[in-house]
């Protein structure tokens, strides 16, 4: 852990009329760390990122980015942070190179430095062969990677990303994440929101926001341990019949159809197994096996939001 976290958010609050978009939110992000913000629509993810980026004021609390209070001094923080919103402002009628030059000018990057930096970033993004293509003619994944290149041209210490990979295919998403990981060696702190929880698993720590508050915050491995109960996968040629037979059985909180299997969220697998098998047999629903599977971050997230509160023993944001 570095001496001082790159981002320190304390009791941050923001209201829009009656709505508490961000409600006494407290968390921090270390240099060299990727912190993921997840949560349902309206949980406060975008509002938090916008406050940290200095484009939106806060009502109370403080938000320090690189030791600089962005609530009181938003202009100064802009020198060493970068913010990529959902629709990053690329110029579609400029080429890839011209877009990069534009952002380099905006941040006053010396010519020599920008040439080397942009070459490295373009290579990492797999865009080196597309430098003279118009941004408007790039695929969705390439546009997002170009956005990231532009956001990184001034070598920021803090990178704020708001759902950067929506609609991006898995190959481009891997490139995108590889770039993020390469920044960590430079000590960059990355705070990203995402609606996709396989991405959350790639973060060092994940915070689950709900109604402007941090419901849970921990490393992905630790979060998964907080899932209340267990998950059993039932493989079957008739998964729908399996679900029908077992939904609502004692101890079964939910039965989720996942392709050729059913995921059962149960309170105690060992105790319930015999009863569940019996139910399938008497319903005449064929099945191959019951297998314990690990709860995913998504499972935890859905369960925490549906119950509206954090599971027992929820961690305070560290």
């Amino acid at each position: 852990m570095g001496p001082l976290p790159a981002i320190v958010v304390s009791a941050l609050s923001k209201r829009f009329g009656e709505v508490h978009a961000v409600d006494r939110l407290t968390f921090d992000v270390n240099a060299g760390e990727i912190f993921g913000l997840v949560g349902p629509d309206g949980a406060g993810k975008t509002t938090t990122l916008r406050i940290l980026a200095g484009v939106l004021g806060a009502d109370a609390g403080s938000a320090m980015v690189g030791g600089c209070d962005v609530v009181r001094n938003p202009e100064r923080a802009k020198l060493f942070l970068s913010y990529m919103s959902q629709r990053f402002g690329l110029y579609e009628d400029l080429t890839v190179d011209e877009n990069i030059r534009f952002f380099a000018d905006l941040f006053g990057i010396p010519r020599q430095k920008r040439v080397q930096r942009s070459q490295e970033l373009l290579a990492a993004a797999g865009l080196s062969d597309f430098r003279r293509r118009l941004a408007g003619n790039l695929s969705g994944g390439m546009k997002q990677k170009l956005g990231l290149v532009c956001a990184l041209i001034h070598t920021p210490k803090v990178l704020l990303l708001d759902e950067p990979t929506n609609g991006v295919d898995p190959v481009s998403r891997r490139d995108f994440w590889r770039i993020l990981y390469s920044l960590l060696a430079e000590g960059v702190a990355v705070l990203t929101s995402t609606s996709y929880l396989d991405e959350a698993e790639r973060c060092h720590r994940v915070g689950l926001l709900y109604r402007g508050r941090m419901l849970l915050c921990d490393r992905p491995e630790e979060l998964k341990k907080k899932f209340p109960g267990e998950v059993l996968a039932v493989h079957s040629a008739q998964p729908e019949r399996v679900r029908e037979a077992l939904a609502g059985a004692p101890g079964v909180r939910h039965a989720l159809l996942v392709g050729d299997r059913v995921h059962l969220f149960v309170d105690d697998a060992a105790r319930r197994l015999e009863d569940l098998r019996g139910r399938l047999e008497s319903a005449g629903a064929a099945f191959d096996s019951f297998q314990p599977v690990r709860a995913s971050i998504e499972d935890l997230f859905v369960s925490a939001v549906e119950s509206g509160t954090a599971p027992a023993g929820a961690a305070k944001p560290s």
Partner: protein
Amino acid sequence: MMGNEPSVVVENLTKRFGAFVALDSINFQAWRGEIFGFLGPNGAGKSTTIRILCGLLRPTSGRAQVAGIDVAAKPEAVRQQIGYMSQKFSLYNDLEVIENLRFFAGLYSVPTKDLRLRLAWALRMAGIEGRERALTRTLAVGWKQRLALACAVLHRPPVVFLDEPTSGVDAVSRRQFWELIQQMVSEGITVFVTTHYMDEAEYCNRLVLIDRGRIVAMGTPTELKTRHMKRDLLMVECEPLGPGLEALHEIPAVLDAAVFGSSLHAVVANAQAALPGIRRGLESRGLKVGRVEQIQPSLEDVFVALTATRESVPKGNA
């Protein structure tokens, strides 16, 4: 679960735009009551296929049948047999929920005598009863998404096309949405869906993976994971992750590598042969190495392995 008649039949389907071959003689069938997933990188030909199947685009050669109708010969007749929903929900934000439903009912010529029942069915199915008079603009994204689906299936089409329907939608809403799809499928509707998110691909009965206009794999999610990857996959625990990823890329035996959750995945020709070299390679760079073991690939690994030819370099620089 699956009927024995195909709802969608595609034979030697080819589409050229000038010299560019968007679809290169593809073949597949989707069965009645099946969730058929269509995966591929941006620009692989997914949307072109959907547009042909919806009768919006004429194929260059080959045949496409939807619900028994040849789409090239009778594009108007096809449109009565299908529902279509894309990531841009195409709802009227300034209309009430019920007004949107009525508008789409008119568009699809739902008979007046059926209208009341169909509207009630749609509201119930989408879980938006009681919100009929709400302005669509005021709905949360997840609600809008379910409303858009309800609008697309008001005329009870046997086949529904969903083009990246969940882009940017939170996990709770996405689960509700997939349960809605499963309910439609259990009523015999065929759902044809594209997605970039592999956790969603797991919900499909069968998947097609398409790359640069050609089908590169087809099967159930389990078949894709067990049969289609020609190379071995290693899970590598390594600290810190970022330098570990870069190091893996430098080890000759490693064909590809990516961060996966809190560990790394490495693609190699032969797991047992590559194992010692990988451990040595990481340790010689001063990295802390935990377990290194062969694992079954995830859908994402399969996707990337079969399509990671990357986007082709343009001829000229348009």
